[in-house]
């Protein structure tokens, strides 16, 4: 045994101490190893796997949108994103040349990306078609990669552009129904997990595992694409002919609130939304028939009428006298016809769209009663349509409504509604039941489970007697007055026109109107209800009867054609149209003389300007006119 006399510990003890220290440290290590490998093992492994594997998304395709007949309005197909991984590129020039040729991208940009190794991957182009992707693959370019993605495709391009909306390039709903039903439409992405090294390079022994993507739900709309196409064609025509700011039209099924068609002009190609221009993208993203409000004008009179009939404050044959204005609380409120409609029954008043009659009705009802009816009709509240950004319209606060305001509201001024709200409320009045308008009928998941949505009735509006009376008068409007502009021979249509001045920044904008028409068919049991609005017509005319009604007629004709509804009493109706009147020459006559001639010929007239004598007439002498057609006279 070795000993050390200077030490208090023997050498043996010192060696033993070293041994014990070694064993102690080994035990510490064992414990730590146990903690890391066993206790934390699972957690570490989970994290490790996510780092060690590269997952490539296999997009679950976005669901389709179909119309009520099953026609596909929006669909998705698989496309490819093209990437370049600079570190794997062997010939940057070759890569750039091929890609720029196939994909139509800039050669220099690709070249730069193919040489830039600062980032592992560079995106060259998104949503490349299958054919182009195949072409790239056949070139066998090293360093070029494709990932699967999908592209949204709208077969009808411009059709329903404000309704369907569109998606971002990453297939997230950005506007319209695409946005509203995004969570249903979104597919669930699948993935391929590939074992790779740190640079993302697949390792040779790698096993690739998959989770399959699930397609999004298919959404069936209430829209009928055939009706939509009819509507869109005519809306576009009106847009051009009336040189309007915009033309909007909606057809709703009054029996359940289904929106059958909803068209706007101008429209845009959904496959190519103006992504680069934020302002026009914003403009395109909204549906002004739901988000924007307008002053309805005379179409609103239907509501006053419904309330008055329901309350029994008037009857169809009550006589009214209109001298061209009413004085309410000392304020003179004019009828649109400055020299007055004279004596007329309620029915005639509706046909003449006489403001004075409705002022009387409104004042008889009083603010509270009228407001309670308007509330029942859905005015002043959102319709609850399945669409984002709906506006509820503007209504004066009930406590601040003076008689003057009440009189104006009664014929559709000093109140603002959205076109959809207007239409839904009209439907409510015509059928007696207010329905929540809707776009979506059913949603079907990828595995075939369908959820049908039933229509939502929001409440009763008026009695069937009142509805019948209103429908009768609306039929009178179409078949007896307004120059038969919306009259379709052989079919019983009801309608009402409206012309309202536009407000800009709270002030009446001179020369700017919204001309509109609401119509329904069949008039004895309304199903198809149409609202047609021309925003700022500037081709010379602005009366709803001239600017909106003729297009409504075309729409109804097209609708009957599509639905295969045969005309009834066609001969009688055609006879009515045969009863034409030859336009006399009125230039040079005094106003009173001209007025009496026109009245005797069963025509209507409007006056423009001040003066005693007619200097111009809108219809040339000798032209054939229908009964009650309107002639514009300049003094």
């Amino acid at each position, binding site marked *: 045994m070795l000993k*050390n006399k200077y030490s208090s510990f023997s050498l043996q003890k010192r*060696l033993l101490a*070293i041994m014990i220290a070694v064993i102690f440290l080994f035990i510490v*290590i064992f414990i730590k*190893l146990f903690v890391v490998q066993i206790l934390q093992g699972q957690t*570490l492994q989970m994290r490790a796997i996510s780092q060690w594997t590269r997952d490539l998304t296999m997009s679950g395709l976005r669901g389709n949108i179909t119309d009520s007949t099953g026609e596909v309005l929006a669909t998705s197909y698989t496309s490819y994103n093209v990437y370049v991984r600079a570190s794997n590129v062997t010939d940057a020039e070759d890569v750039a040349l091929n890609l720029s040729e196939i994909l139509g991208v800039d050669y220099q940009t690709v070249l730069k990306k193919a040489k830039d190794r600062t980032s592992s991957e560079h995106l060259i182009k998104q949503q490349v078609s299958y054919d182009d992707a195949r072409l790239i693959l056949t070139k066998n370019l090293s360093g070029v990669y494709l990932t699967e993605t999908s592209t949204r495709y709208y077969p009808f391009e411009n059709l329903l552009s404000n309704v369907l909306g569109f998606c971002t390039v990453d297939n997230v709903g950005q506007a319209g129904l695409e946005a509203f039903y995004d969570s249903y439409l979104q597919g669930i992405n699948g993935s391929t997990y590939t074992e790779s090294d740190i*640079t993302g390079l697949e390792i040779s022994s790698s096993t690739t595992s998959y989770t399959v993507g699930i397609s999004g739900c298919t959404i069936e709309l209430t829209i009928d694409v055939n009706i939509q196409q009819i509507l869109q064609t005519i809306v576009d025509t009106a847009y051009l002919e009336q040189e309007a700011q915009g033309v909007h039209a909606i057809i709703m099924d009054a029996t359940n609130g289904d929106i059958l068609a909803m068209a706007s002009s101008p429209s845009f190609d959904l496959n190519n939304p103006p992504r680069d221009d934020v302002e026009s993208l914003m403009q395109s993203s909204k549906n002004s028939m739901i988000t924007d409000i307008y002053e309805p004008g005379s179409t609103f009179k239907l509501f006053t009428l419904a309330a008055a009939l329901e309350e029994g404050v008037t009857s169809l044959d009550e006589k009214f006298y209109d001298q061209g204005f009413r004085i309410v609380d000392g304020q003179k409120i004019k009828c649109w016809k400055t020299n007055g409609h004279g004596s007329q029954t309620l029915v005639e008043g509706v046909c003449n769209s006489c403001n004075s009659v409705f002022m009387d009705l409104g004042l008889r009802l009083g603010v509270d009663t009228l407001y309670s009816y308007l509330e029942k009709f859905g005015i002043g509240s959102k319709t609850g349509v399945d669409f984002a950004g709906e506006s509820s319209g503007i209504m004066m606060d009930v406590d601040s409504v003076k008689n003057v305001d009440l009189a104006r509201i009664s014929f559709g001024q000093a109140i603002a509604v959205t076109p959809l709200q207007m239409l839904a409320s009209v439907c409510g009045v015509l059928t007696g039941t207010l329905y929540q308008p809707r776009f979506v009928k059913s949603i079907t998941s990828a595995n075939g489970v369908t959820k049908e949505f039933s229509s939502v009735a929001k409440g009763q509006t008026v009695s069937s007697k009142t509805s019948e009376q209103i429908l009768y008068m609306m039929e009178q409007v179409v078949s007896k007055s307004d120059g038969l502009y919306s009259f379709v021979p052989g079919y019983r249509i009801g309608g009402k026109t409206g012309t309202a001045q536009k407000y800009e920044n709270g002030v009446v904008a001179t020369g700017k109107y919204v001309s509109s028409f609401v119509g329904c068919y069949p008039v004895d049991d309304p199903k198809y209800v149409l609202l047609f609005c021309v925003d700022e017509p500037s081709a010379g005319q602005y009366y709803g009867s001239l600017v909106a009604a003729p297009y409504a007629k075309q729409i109804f004709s097209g609708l009957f054609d599509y639905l295969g509804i045969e005309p009834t009493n066609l001969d009688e109706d055609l006879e009515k149209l045969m009863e034409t009147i030859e336009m006399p020459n009125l230039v040079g006559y005094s106003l009173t003389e001209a007025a009496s001639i026109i009245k005797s010929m069963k025509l209507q007239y409007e006056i423009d300007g001040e003066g005693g004598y007619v200097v111009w007439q809108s219809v040339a002498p000798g032209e054939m006119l229908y009964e009650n057609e309107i002639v514009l006279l300049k003094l």
Partner: protein
Amino acid sequence: MKFLSLAKKQKVFDEKLKTSFFYKGKHSINWYVLVPTIALVVLGIIMVYSASSYTAEQNYGNSMFFVQKQIIGAVLGLGVCAFCYFMNYNILIKLRYYALAVGIIFLCIVFIPGIGIESYGAKRWIGFGFFSFQASEIAKFCFIIFCAGYMAKNKDRLGTFKGALPVLCAGLVMCFLIMCEPNMSITLCVGALMLVMLLVGGIKIRHLFYLLIPIVIAIPILILIEPYRIDRILAFLDPWASPQGEGFQLIQSLYSLGSGGFFGVGLFNSRAKYSFLPFSESDFIFSIIGEELGLVGAVCVLVLFGILIIAGLNIAKKARTRFGCYLATGISAIIAIQVILNVMVVTGLVPPTGLPLPFVSAGSTSLVVFLASVGVLLNIHRQNTQNLSYMLFSPLKAN
């Protein structure tokens, strides 16, 4: 009479022992040393292959790049090991000052441009054409030889501070030079080795504590000199704070170990080795062992090291000469220190620092030198077991 003849024999033997280059005694192999060593070397070759084949293919176009070197190192190392077994370790005592000089010269050569090779911002290698080695790998064994020799020759002086001074100076000079490379981990190893040598050499425990005080003070200063060390330490405390930066290596190591679980993912099935874990074939090979062979494999490897170290210390205990005792202690200690430090780094017990795992990590210099030292251990054992009767009378034999 018999006693006298034995004493005579012993004297003759001792004289021979001092001078003969080869030891002529009986063969006796300490299997507790040899078997773990061989096992670790073989495991090392397999694990180096597993850990490096992918990155070697990627970087050198040859998946066998590291394994070839490792096999050459193993063959060469076993040769040197055998040589050391056959030679007489006692002659090393005469070489103690040469050893010290060689160690220090090597450590200085590193700084000579053209010969010293810089990599990863540190000058650690000496290169002669195709052949290069890490100076500190050799220097630390030079230091052991010097310490053992000096302490054996001056066995009574270690109790005084003055007597311990040469060991201290040699150790500190080496530490300083290694730190200048810079190589913090080997510095720590040599420092720890120095303390073990002083302890076993008979330094007063009080003096040992005095020595520890400046070391404790030096650590924060060393950290402040090289700011990257702060980051390393912070990364060690919370590696997840900078998973892409300083914490990266430790996180990768933990991922690797954690994925192993009890029984591992199977030999050659590591995922961390696909360039995720830097230095997976050298400093962090233990992670790959833990991943592929699991906790069971990792513990087995540590048990092998444990057997080897304890056996080495036992040889020291039974050493017939002080020099042999000190030498065996030093060799066992450097193996123990490197194993413990390496595994602690890999498991996140101490801040990350680059240090190879003896016998296993890729690196032929390290392998050859460690195998040589095992040869010396075996040689000491062989001499311990000589059944000479003089041992009964005079076990206390210096030199």
